[in-house]
């Protein structure tokens, strides 16, 4: 993993593909969380997923993040079908190919910022010295080079999310999965975080972001709309200027972008 610090061309085969994916939960009666959904994430693409509660956003995230396996259809990451893998192979795939960013940050509370960033590399058996220098590089990258030894409780929400983003980048993943990354942040901090995602996109990383805020979703290249577990439609927003720039002085209300 030493030379995996930048996305190289061998990763260009790193397409994430969902083919006719279905997932049904049985809670008394069957709940079709996803039905016949097909989606391809090209390398370097930035996709937003929108949809009302219960539309299958989380299930899709869990599928693409190898936390869950489809009942029907296949999910392929870098050409490997997730459904065919054993539990520990999927864990390995999660650790190396996927970087998670959560709404609630989900940092390990007793570990410092640097240790949190190190953890995915610990599970991936990266040697100690490499881990440390990489954690420092990544925290520098997200602007927290001076907060290496701070515990999560000593950091603000925005700083915690930056640590989480640095952690997501630790093993140079094929795909960054972000679940409402700005949901717990005020609009200004949220805008900073979105800028960071745009920079990561500009560096050529593949990002999929679930959000229910349109102005956040418009920062992506396209928006995948889900409804009742099915793909509703895909909207190309690569040329759209975000409806409400977060810095806009007139529309300071955080939900100013609500176009419903």
């Amino acid at each position, binding site marked *: 993993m030493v030379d995996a610090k930048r996305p190289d061309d061998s990763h260009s085969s790193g397409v994430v593909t969902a083919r006719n994916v279905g997932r049904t939960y049985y809670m008394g009666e069957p709940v079709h969380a996803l039905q016949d959904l097909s989606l391809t994430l090209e390398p370097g693409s930035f996709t937003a997923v929108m949809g009302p509660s219960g539309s299958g956003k989380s299930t899709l995230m869990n599928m693409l993040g190898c936390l869950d396996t489809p009942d029907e259809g296949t999910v392929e990451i870098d050409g490997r079908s997730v459904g065919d893998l054993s539990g520990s192979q999927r*864990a390995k795939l*999660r*650790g190396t190919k996927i970087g998670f960013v959560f709404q609630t940050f*989900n*940092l390990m*509370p007793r570990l410092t910022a640097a240790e949190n960033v190190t953890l995915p590399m*610990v*599970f991936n058996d990266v040697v100690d010295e490499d881990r440390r220098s990489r954690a420092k590089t990544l925290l520098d990258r997200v602007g927290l080079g001076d907060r290496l030894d701070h515990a999560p409780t000593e950091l603000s929400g925005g700083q915690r999310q930056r640590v989480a983003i640095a*952690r997501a980048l630790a093993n140079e993943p094929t795909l960054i999965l972000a679940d409402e990354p700005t949901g717990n942040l005020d609009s200004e901090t949220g805008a900073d975080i979105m800028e960071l995602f745009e920079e990561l996109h500009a560096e050529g990383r593949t990002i999929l972001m679930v959000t229910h805020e349109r102005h956040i979703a418009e920062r992506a290249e396209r928006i995948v709309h889900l409804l009742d577990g099915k793909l509703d439609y895909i909207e190309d927003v690569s040329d759209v200027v975000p409806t409400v720039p977060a810095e806009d002085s007139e529309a300071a209300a955080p939900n100013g972008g609500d176009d419903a």
Partner: protein
Amino acid sequence: MKIGESFRISWRAITGHKLRSTLTTIGIVIGIGSIIAFMVLGGAFEEDALGGFDTEEQTLVLVQTQGNVENGFGFQTFSDPIYTASDVERIEQIDGVEYVDPDGTIPASQLRYGDESTVSFTVRIADPRSFSKNVSGSFVEGEAFAGPGETVIDTRLAESLGGNVSVGDEIQVTFSDGTRERLTVSGIFNAENQGPGVGASLWVPEDPYYNVTVETPSGERERAYTSINVWVESFEDLNHVTDQTDAYFQSGESDAERLVDDDKQIAVQTLDQLLGQVSEIFDQVTIFIAGIAGIALIVGAIGIANIMIVSVTERTREIGIMKAIGANNRDIVQLFLIESLILGVIGSIGGVGLGLGGGYLLVSFADFPMIYPTNWIVIAVVVGVGVGVVSGLYPAWRAARVDPIEALRRE
């Protein structure tokens, strides 16, 4: 994940809950500690009773009457006079026997030394040659008696007579039959290895003082003794003499065999065998008591399991995070197992410390020599580690089964 990393992370989890971890380990500390303390105490007691004997090269065969202790462990020795003069003569004829020194006591009522007097003492008969064998002690002063009119007293008796007795002094013994004898002290003997419970003694030659007799099966009255010490010429003859002596007492020819009570046996043993028999009983008692202390250890193990289960529940979300960022089930099991292993190890190290410390206090209170039960320390640490692992198994398994999707949904 590398084991070293697990230790680092698990250690962080333990130190993150100092009070809880401490209370958890105390269960193990007390369990292991009480076992070790009892082992120290038992071992020290045994050492105090038997430790001074150098049994390896002793050329002594003991013939004693033994029987089981009622309602208790082990055996006890009886002092019925059943070994007759004829028995002694027959044993003396066995090849390799140097001489036979029978034991017996002469009933006596009072002993005077100047203005001092005592009634608690025992008059024993002895062969003067046996004092130089060094099995049971050594002379502080003087030497063995040369003949009638002289006596060897032990240091305990010397103390109970005021501590001023010295060689050449006269003491006066009143025997139970009313006769009085003035005896000159020829030596003061330190009977350090008599063990606890043996009171003050003095030794006199068999003749002319000893006259305990029994009626033999053949209808005659003969002198009889309570036990027999057979001294062997060389160590090489020891087994042979032991076997021959034993055979004699089973041959049907000996008086003792016919005089002994039905519920008692005649035991023919080397000193080594006798001490082995005694120390086996000490060990049994010690292990029995330590076993009771071991219950505390079980309680401690349940404590670890309990706290680990709580810990898994409490850290469900963390487990979910770790799984999301690439931890597989083995990593999770490893983390929790190592955590409970560390608790077990700390507990057993603390327990060994507490046990040795507590044992030392008890031992010095009882005035026994301190011993270090190395075997038991090793066993205790192994058991502590085992307890840690075993009580961590179920919680670790539960941790591994945590569903990351559920766990991450938790607030």
